[in-house]
């Protein structure tokens, strides 16, 4: 997050240099090209579309429909493709943009463009085109991750690549018409492994305990094995998958740097709180996933403790540093960021706790989940306005994230 307004008073050389070869880019910052602006706007549009339609579709599944949209055809498509819209159209596109920005290759933006357009096709009722565009997106995203591994061969970059392959498998199964029991473990493995890889990278800052790395590999191997088994042996696969999720929550609780950074202040503490709250939901999701596989009615708990409690909470934590990087929007951090975070977690308690045996409460909780996400969007907009008003206040800088 950057809190600076002053432009450079002079020209900077600003060279980004490849260690093993010639200078990759030596760019002077200026106005982006028209093509870049069009791509950015298109990506923004498809990300927003997938998110909004995915939420609307999810609410309809629980019997909550926005009045003006009750008879809209797209809403029916959105309800059918809720998971694909949220995981591939929204999260997959955002992660694809993140990785494309990191590798600084124009071609890398093909991955988020394809996944974003996949979401659009799904909404228009073009299910096959949407599904195969998702496959194309995952292939491109996997290639981008190969580039990352070539640049830095490390445990966390290899895990990111494995996460991309999990997305590719999930998208292939989706395109081939398999059901959610087979597909969802792979889609969530993509998201969970992406987060786990990034957290593993951070643990390098702490004194590495010998068990940290191999225990994470064991947990993630179990996760992938559970995903693979889910299509052919749903009970065994689901129990293994759920156990791996719970074990990952334990691993993060023991080894993650949030145990330290939660005692810092400002944005750092906020990010740690988001993550720690997410780890709690990850443990709940693991238990519920295993319980669902054994026949208990805990599917909503498993999917949304994971998707909203773990992943969206983590996204809320990282948005203040990621958005400035991928959308070039500058934000002012403040305690008001805790409001949507609290709303998300409280609404999840309502939906997944009290609503477990009471469908109306579950629907109310889901509605408040959507309100929490809308509140977060408003918070981001407010933070952008606050940055412009509070231009460069001395002593409040919380500059960029360097990972």
């Amino acid at each position: 997050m950057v809190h600076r307004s002053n432009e450079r008073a002079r020209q900077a050389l600003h060279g980004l240099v490849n260690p093993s070869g010639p200078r990759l880019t030596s760019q002077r910052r200026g106005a982006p090209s028209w093509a870049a602006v069009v791509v950015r706007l298109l990506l923004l549009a498809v990300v927003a579309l997938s998110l909004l339609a995915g939420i609307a579709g999810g609410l309809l599944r629980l019997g909550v429909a926005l009045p003006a949209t009750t008879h809209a055809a797209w809403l029916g498509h959105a309800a059918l493709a809720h998971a694909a819209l949220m995981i591939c159209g929204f999260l997959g596109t955002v992660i694809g943009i993140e990785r494309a920005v990191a590798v600084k290759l124009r071609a890398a933006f093909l991955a988020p463009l394809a996944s974003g357009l996949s979401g659009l096709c799904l909404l228009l009722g073009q299910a096959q085109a949407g599904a195969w565009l998702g496959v194309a997106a995952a292939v491109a995203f996997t290639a981008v991750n190969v580039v990352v591994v070539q640049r830095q061969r490390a445990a966390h970059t290899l895990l990111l690549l494995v996460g991309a392959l999990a997305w590719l498998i999930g998208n292939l199964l989706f395109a081939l018409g398999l059901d959610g029991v087979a597909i969802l473990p792979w889609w969530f493995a993509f998201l969970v492994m992406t987060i786990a890889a990034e957290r593993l990278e951070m643990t390098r800052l702490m004194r590495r305990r010998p068990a940290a790395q191999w225990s994470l590999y064991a947990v993630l191997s179990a996760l992938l094995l559970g995903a693979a088994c889910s299509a052919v042996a749903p009970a065994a696969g689901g129990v293994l998958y759920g156990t791996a999720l719970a074990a990952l929550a334990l691993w993060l609780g023991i080894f993650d740097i949030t145990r330290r950074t939660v005692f810092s202040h400002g944005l750092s503490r906020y990010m740690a709180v988001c993550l720690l709250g997410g780890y709690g939901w990850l443990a709940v999701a693991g238990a519920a996933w295993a319980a669902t596989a054994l026949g208990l009615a805990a599917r909503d708990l498993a999917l949304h403790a994971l998707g909203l409690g773990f992943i969206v909470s983590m996204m809320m934590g990282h948005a203040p540093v990621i958005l400035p990087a991928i959308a070039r929007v500058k934000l002012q951090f403040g305690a008001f960021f805790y409001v949507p975070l609290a709303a998300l977690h409280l609404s999840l308690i309502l939906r997944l706790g009290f609503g477990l045996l009471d469908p109306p409460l579950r629907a109310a909780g889901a509605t408040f989940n959507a309100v929490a996400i809308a509140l977060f969007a408003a918070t981001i907009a407010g933070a952008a306005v606050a940055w412009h008003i509070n231009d460069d206040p001395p002593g409040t800088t919380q500059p960029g994230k360097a990972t």
Partner: protein
Amino acid sequence: MESRPPFPYKGPEALRQAIGDALTRVVDPEVAMTIVDVGLIYGVTVTDEKLHVLLTMTSAACPVTDLIVEEVETELDRVTPPELLIEVELVWEPPWSTDRMSERAKRFMGW
């Protein structure tokens, strides 16, 4: 205040402290430490025409590299003479390791 800078510096003594302080104002909120404490600055060289910073990141998959570079430039811009060009070079070799962390950073992370 802890003595700085914990990175190789070649250039006028008059700028050493100001440059160290400027780089220390660039913070990684994810780890709640400055980029100097994390050990991302590999070296600073100041000649008559140019201020050259060599820095790394801990991950090649990090999407906010440009923001860090921009922030480094902005902070240096504030404390150095306007005629001095600022060049920030991102390298991956040698790879970052925990040996580069400052004592303060290690204490914070429970070493």
